[in-house]
């Protein structure tokens, strides 16, 4: 299974949840599969999905799923200690770890070599770290949503991409639509 296959299995579970989606193909795939006002698409700024997701989770009550990639976590490694030390039990960080920089042509990442992101997250102090296969990811996300504990999920999947169009929605429109939904859920 490649990332888009994993996302497909997640749709029934995350469709109605607040989702912060990583730059590039993950956002484009999510937008194509299931565009929702509860999705915040990052159109730029590699690495900050987990940070935006944590800030959002700390600021309000609804559950938040940040979909990140192994390459993006590697580029913003400082995020893991911040997450560990500022736990938000409404926060789930889902790292889709395909061992490659998918959006830029599948160049290998160190996470696909000797570096274990799950072990790094644990070493940083994250309490609930789950590493799972691509096939088990939907169940892991469901379990995390059912629980009330901040959870880091590292989903190990294969490298590869499908052809998807870019998102042509304007950034302030994405933000405004998302914030309206966030505020409705906290009313």
């Amino acid at each position, binding site marked *: 299974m490649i990332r888009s296959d994993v996302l497909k299995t997640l749709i029934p579970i995350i469709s109605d949840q607040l989702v912060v989606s990583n730059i590039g193909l993950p956002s484009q795939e999510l937008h194509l599969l299931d565009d929702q006002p509860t999705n915040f698409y990052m159109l730029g700024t590699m690495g900050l999905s987990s940070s935006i997701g944590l800030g959002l989770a*700390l600021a309000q009550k609804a559950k938040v799923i940040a979909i990140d990639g192994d390459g993006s976590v590697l580029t*913003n490694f400082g995020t893991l200690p911040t997450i560990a030390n500022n736990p938000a039990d409404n926060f789930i960080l889902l790292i889709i770890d395909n061992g490659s920089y998918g959006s830029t042509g599948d160049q290998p990442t160190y996470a696909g070599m000797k570096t274990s992101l799950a072990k790094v997250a644990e070493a940083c102090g994250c309490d609930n770290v789950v590493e799972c296969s691509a096939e088990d990811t939907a169940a892991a996300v469901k379990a995390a949503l059912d629980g009330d504990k901040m959870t880091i999920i590292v989903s190990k999947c294969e490298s590869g991409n499908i052809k998807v169009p870019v998102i042509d929605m304007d950034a302030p429109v994405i933000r405004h639509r998302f914030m309206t939904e*966030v505020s409705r859920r906290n009313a």
Partner: protein
Amino acid sequence: MSINQKIVNDFVKNKIKFVTTVPCKQLAGVIDEIEASKDIYHIPSNKEDEGMGLCAGAYMGGKRSAIIMQNTAIGVTINTLVTLIQYYNIPLPMLISYRGEIGEPVACQVEMAVHTKALLDQLNIPTYHFHTKSDADELDAILNHSFMAKKPVAILTDASFWQGA
């Protein structure tokens, strides 16, 4: 009232409830005040672009946010300022220690100081320079301006400001 208390009072008055900080010696007092404030969630970040991501998320969650940082970090935050904060129209007051100005003991800090205003100008970020204590009288209005315009603003605070404060 100390200048640090005044700054935090103005933050609270403008309903800022989420502040991320990357430390600087000049900012130590204000960071202590932020940490002590019962109205503000203080979340130290490891890098300034990470901090801006946290602030963007908190803002979308309904909490006004701000970042406290050093001018040496402006270079590493340009992409985040442009593609996240400005592109999505997110307000972000940046209280910045303006290292490398008159009174600076570390020569290397001057190297970034000479680029600071030029970079902020290139990014079209409204920039305010606090040099004497009374300059801080405008802070309340500057914060209000950032949220009104949904833009980042830079408040540069130099050594003279902190020495006179």
